[in-house]
């Protein structure tokens, strides 16, 4: 009994409960048909939200006002860079992935450079950066319809026993991220900065260096996400990352991470990612129109945040 109660006190449990409820509702609607396939599809799609969600989580944990609004532009550019470097040949897959990673990391580093040099709020810094990145992407990716190499496309779609391999790798990655957050100096420093930046500085945390690393990490994750998305959807385009602005912030908040900073939660990102994807699947299964789907998605996100809200500081 006590173990159940302690489990219910964990903020992330609710995102998984939500995911299961949505899944059960959909399965009940279809009469048990396609329940397994739905989990497979949800896992493969949730991966992309989880990867950027983890990056966004580290940034948001830095404290009020820290958020990376440049992720969609970053994902778009990195997907184009990856596809162009790979050039459709299997031998260049690793180089292409590294290029996407470097492109994303550079974006993150520029974001922090703007925050640091201009002493402007991260929201406006990442926003201005995203304007420029978006233009670079439009100009660079003009008419670009390069398909991913066949090996890369099949790797991103590869499944073993109905479980996407990419999802397994992402689970390993998130375990690493959880360890980094709770057991490593980097993660502890991020949490300390989010709780009280001045106290962290007085305690000898290299505030500037940690913030730089966090933004670069978030950018790099956005970059790798862009490459994987281009592989999964078989082609890069400018708008490929658009939905990940809301998604990355939503999974962080629904997953139980505090928007006020200083309190992060990695398992919740997975729960919330699955919840969002399954929610979309459910609405599609119910056969609602695109407009109704958008309205319901928005209302459910607002509803979940209202139910989970009550944090002290805002922004």
């Amino acid at each position, binding site marked *: 009994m006590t173990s159940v109660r302690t489990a219910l006190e964990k903020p992330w449990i609710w995102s998984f409960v939500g995911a299961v409820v949505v899944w059960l509702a959909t399965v009940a609607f279809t009469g048990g048909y396609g329940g397994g396939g739905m989990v497979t599809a949800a896992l493969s799609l949730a991966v992309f939200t989880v990867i950027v969600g983890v990056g966004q989580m580290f940034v948001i944990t830095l404290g009020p*006002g820290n958020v990376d609004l440049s992720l969609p532009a970053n994902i778009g550019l990195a997907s184009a860079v990856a596809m162009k470097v790979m050039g459709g040949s299997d031998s260049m897959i690793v180089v292409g992935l590294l290029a996407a990673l470097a492109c994303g990391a550079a974006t993150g580093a520029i974001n922090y450079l703007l925050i640091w040099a201009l002493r402007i709020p991260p929201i406006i810094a990442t*926003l*201005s950066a995203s*304007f420029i990145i978006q233009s670079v992407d439009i100009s660079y990716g003009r008419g670009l319809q390069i398909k991913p190499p066949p090996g890369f496309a099949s790797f991103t779609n590869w499944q073993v026993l109905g479980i996407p391999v990419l999802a397994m790798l992402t689970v390993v990655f998130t375990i690493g991220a959880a360890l980094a957050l709770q057991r490593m100096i980097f993660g502890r420093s991020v949490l300390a900065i989010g709780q009280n930046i001045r106290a962290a500085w007085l305690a000898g945390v290299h505030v500037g260096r940690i913030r730089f690393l966090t933004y670069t990490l978030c950018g790099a994750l956005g970059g790798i996400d862009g490459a994987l998305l281009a592989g999964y959807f078989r082609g890069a385009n400018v708008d490929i990352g658009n939905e990940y602005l809301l998604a990355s912030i939503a999974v962080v908040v629904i997953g139980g991470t505090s*928007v006020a900073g200083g309190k992060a939660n990695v398992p919740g990102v997975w729960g919330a990612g699955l919840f969002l994807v399954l929610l979309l699947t459910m609405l599609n299964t119910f056969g609602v129109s695109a407009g109704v789907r958008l309205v319901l998605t928005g209302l459910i996100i607002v509803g979940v945040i209202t139910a989970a809200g009550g944090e002290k500081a805002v922004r």
Partner: protein
Amino acid sequence: MTAIAPGTLPKSSPRGNAARARLLRGLLPALSLALVLIAIAWLNPRAISYFGFNLMLNLAIPIALATIAQMFVIAGNELDLSIGTFVGFVGCVTATWLRDAPLLGIAVLLGSIGAYALLGALIHLRNLPSIVVTLGMSFVWQGLAILILPKPGGKAPDWLLAIMSFKPPYVPFPIMAALIIAAVVHFGLMRTSYGVILRGSGGNAAALRRAGWSLLKTKIVLFALTGLFGVLSGMALIGITTSADANIGNGYTLLSIAGVILGGGEFVGGRVSPIGAVIGALTLALAASPLLTFMHIPPDWQVAANGAILIIVLAARVLISRRER
């Protein structure tokens, strides 16, 4: 310095310096607008005419109204990431119901302002992060817009078309409208006592609460004003474009935030400036396309130009602020 000429320098020189820096900082939005105008005049002198301004500032009115809308939430230390899709939603209502069934259209638009007020109450009562709530709402407005107008189309009401194509003598209509918007909002927010309270809710909420003011009420009023100016922006936009599209306002979210910041507003502390916000919106509207067209910069880079202008102005502000200390 003082050792060289001890008697000649007045004692208040550092304070005078700070005042000058503050003045310079206040003039920065106007200076950036002047710079963009000079660049345009230099590249294409014919653009600086009654007709040229009418063309170049065509879309400045809806952008300025959306920027003012954003400014109200920012005055209360919040951010509205849904204003773009809200403007699109209003546009769709304007081009359909407001023309075919005016009463229904008016009711829906008033209701949407009410929805904004409720959002303000919700954000205050549950202490929610406005970024996430308004991001969620942006989906709701977009969805509603698609439901009302699945395909681009509709038509603006005739009276709205007549207002927006009004051609006053000597002063181009967009400039006149910008002056009126700036003057009205400046008076309301900067010169009335409740305007001070509204800005105070962003400056020092705890002090206001102790003084007996309702923070719930200030937040509701700020969000309702955002809704009101969002509605005006959507209607003005449709009056210019004559027909609507569910995605028509999507770019306004980022433009409006950029406009407020360009105009000297700050994200926290209730430090905003209505006149600055309108100037910021005009700068963005001019810099976004006319300037780039005259400079033969391909449209691909128009978005980047907005980002670059933002960064340059903020860099200038940092340089000035450093002297202020």
